[in-house]
């Protein structure tokens, strides 16, 4: 972690210091000024913005190092600036308090945008190294003389609105060389550190997840659960976005979901999430496992970027993204599968996800994660390539390796993909699939392919189906590794929920009845 310490002001720099709260400000302070655009024609000066170096930063420090309500300004103040010109700008706040932690820095830093926009005649845009401030001519006319007044007003708002901030001190800089130097040496390493946290932060590190019901107008029973390890299906909302939105509007489309008890650490099942899902789906779903493909998978809205599909013939999972128009090896296109799965349904065998879920360390971990993945379009694979473990990357086929199930089988056998001999899931070392039954059968099928290329398995002679289905005895839904005829479309209209069951099966053959086509 980058060390947090006060910034040393170079000797000989032009410095202005002021300590203590301001009695009166020559400007109004109110949320009604939010969004106020100061037009170029009405602008006194621009600070930061597209043409100058700039940044803003909040640093949490031990209480004894922070001098409350002190402002230090390094560089020219407003009265030394020329009307209509742009200047470099850095706003640094040191904060202290018994509840103030380094983790809170970015959250507190974002509020600078809100608070400064409450100031009449002051426009604040963007964040981090992009901040863009304009001060209106009107504000100067009304008596604004110094950036110290701006800093004092902002600090006052910080303390009023976030009472856990016990002490706050500001350092504002308009000196170009110093802004440049500090941006490079202090601010950038801290921003980078924060972004790395996105990948470091996991479900177990937080107390709350966030919901997203933005697309319930399309998918009324869909509940997106956004956790550090699972972004929204549309790919747009991360846990950090959820948190930001929930803070602004706690009753809005992104609400906090207290995690509750951990029910299944591998599948990602939490009592709080289950309760929430039940409530928000109108009782449609009672359980959701965040990192499971087969067991109580997350619902799929219709907005998802990628759909995953189980292929029983190879006992593996394929993924196809919206931009890939050709059929996947199962003979279905993205839109066909999406049509079957979308609308906020929990469909075992299909799963909609956001592309950045591929980055997750918990990516369908209950079902083997990457080691269960057998196929994805080249474009998609390249996009997420660096998140695929080295020992499996080359074993995942693309359309260049396989366009049909038979080609896929050949490929997987050739590269010795884990699904062939059985997948061991990394998270707990448990062997979760048995591998393909007999090599011979697979070969037979290849020959038959020439006659019926679309559904080779269906043409295979099979003994009449005898399925000892005893719904009271099956372990939670585990699709057995068996040659199953490829369905023409996704399983339609049938929902099979088997609870607390145990079934011992020697062999299952599912056969299409002759009347169907």
């Amino acid at each position, binding site marked *: 972690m980058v060390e947090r310490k006060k910034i040393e002001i170079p000797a000989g720099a032009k410095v202005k210091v002021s300590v203590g709260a301001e009695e009166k400000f020559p400007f109004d302070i109110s949320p009604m000024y939010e*969004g106020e655009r100061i037009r170029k*024609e*009405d602008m006194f000066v621009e600070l930061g913005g597209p043409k100058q170096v700039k940044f803003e930063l909040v640093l949490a420090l031990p209480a004894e190092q922070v001098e409350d309500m002190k402002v230090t300004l390094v560089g020219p103040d407003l009265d030394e600036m020329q009307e209509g010109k742009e200047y470099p700008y850095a706003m640094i706040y040191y904060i202290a308090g018994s509840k103030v932690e380094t983790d809170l820095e970015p959250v507190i830093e*974002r509020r600078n945008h809100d608070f400064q926009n409450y100031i009449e005649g002051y426009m604040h845009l*963007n964040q981090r190294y992009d901040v863009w401030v304009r001060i209106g001519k009107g504000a100067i006319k009304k008596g604004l003389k110094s950036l110290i007044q701006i800093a004092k007003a902002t600090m006052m708002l910080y303390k009023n609105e976030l009472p856990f901030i016990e002490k706050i001190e500001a350092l504002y800089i308009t000196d170009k060389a110093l802004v440049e130097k500090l941006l490079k040496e202090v601010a950038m390493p801290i921003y980078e550190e924060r972004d790395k946290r996105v990948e470091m932060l996991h479900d177990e590190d937080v107390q709350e997840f966030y919901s997203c019901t933005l697309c319930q107008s399309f998918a009324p029973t869909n509940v997106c659960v956004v956790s550090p390890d699972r972004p929204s299906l*549309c790919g*747009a909302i991360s846990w950090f976005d959820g948190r930001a939105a929930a803070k602004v509007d706690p009753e809005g489309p992104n609400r906090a979901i207290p995690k509750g008890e951990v029910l299944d650490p591998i599948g990602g099942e939490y009592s709080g999430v289950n309760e929430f899902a039940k409530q928000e789906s109108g009782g449609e779903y009672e359980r959701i496992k965040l990192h499971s493909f087969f067991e109580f998978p997350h619902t799929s809205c219709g907005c998802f970027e990628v759909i995953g599909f189980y292929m029983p013939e190879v006992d593996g999972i394929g993924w196809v993204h919206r931009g890939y128009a050709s059929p996947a090896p199962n003979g279905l296109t993205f839109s066909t599968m999406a049509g079957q799965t979308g609308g906020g349904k929990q469909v075992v065998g299909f799963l909609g996800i956001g592309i*950045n879920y591929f980055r997750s360390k918990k990516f369908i971990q209950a079902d083997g994660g990457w080691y269960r993945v057998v196929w994805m379009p080249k474009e998609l694979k390249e996009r997420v390539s660096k998140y695929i473990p080295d020992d499996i990357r080359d074993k995942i086929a693309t359309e260049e390796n396989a366009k049909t199930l038979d080609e896929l089988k050949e490929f997987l056998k050739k590269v010795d993909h884990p699904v062939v001999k059985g997948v061991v899931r990394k998270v707990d070392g448990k062997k979760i699939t048995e591998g393909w039954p007999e090599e011979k059968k697979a070969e037979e099928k290849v020959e038959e392919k020439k006659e019926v290329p679309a559904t080779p398995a269906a043409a295979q002679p099979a003994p009449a189906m005898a399925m000892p289905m005893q719904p009271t005895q099956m372990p939670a839904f585990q699709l057995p590794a068996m040659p199953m005829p490829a369905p023409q479309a996704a399983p339609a209209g049938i929902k099979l929920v088997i609870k607390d069951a145990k079934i011992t099966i020697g062999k299952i053959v599912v056969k299409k009845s002759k009347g169907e086509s």
Partner: protein
Amino acid sequence: MTTVAVTGKGGTGKTLVSALLIHFISKKSNKVLAVDADPDSNLADALGVEVEKTLGEIRELFQTSRDEMGTMNKEQWLEGKIYEAICECKGYDLLVMGRPEGEGCYCFANSLLRGVLKKLTRHYEYVVIDSEAGLEHFSRKTIDSADYVLIVTDMSKKGLATAKRIKELTKELKLNFKDMMLIANRIANEAAEQRIKKFADEEGIKLLEILPYDEKVVELDLKGIPIVNLDEKSGVYRRMSKVAEVFLKG
């Protein structure tokens, strides 16, 4: 804030009306936002200004770069980009909505956009929107609402039919505007004037102004000169100045 949405069938003079409205209103107020919400027209050309980026382009940029934003606040990112895209013209700001969205999910991007635009527009005294006849931005709520809906039509059958349809559409969309008005354009003779008056009566839409057929407008069009350079003595110019007065009075 007074919001005027100018709409009508493409080619009837909708952009001409929008541009001249902006021209006149911005002479009286320095807080005017012009919004080009019709991807098929070009309000910027009519005003004689250049626009670097459209909102549509920003939305696409958001879709492709959002995965790399780390812990940055996406709403503030989007807001910053929109403010950068707003063209600061003499006397008014111009925002071009651009192309409609591509494939994929825009729920989140549009939800953020709505929030940003709502906060932005409330600080202007006048917002003039050049909108295509389908009123897409209103139905998607990227633009919140309008106080006045101005329907522009010429005497063509299609123009009148579109005017009728817009009237129905505003009902469907529950746009709670204060008033809906009609501007008839390219009315060449007395007979046409009578016909348009009858149409307005039958449809129950207030006929705000009748713009004559104007050779000077045609000339500018042919030469590609911005319409705001229209001769101040021309009939269209003088009558549009009267139209602007209606809104300036509020």
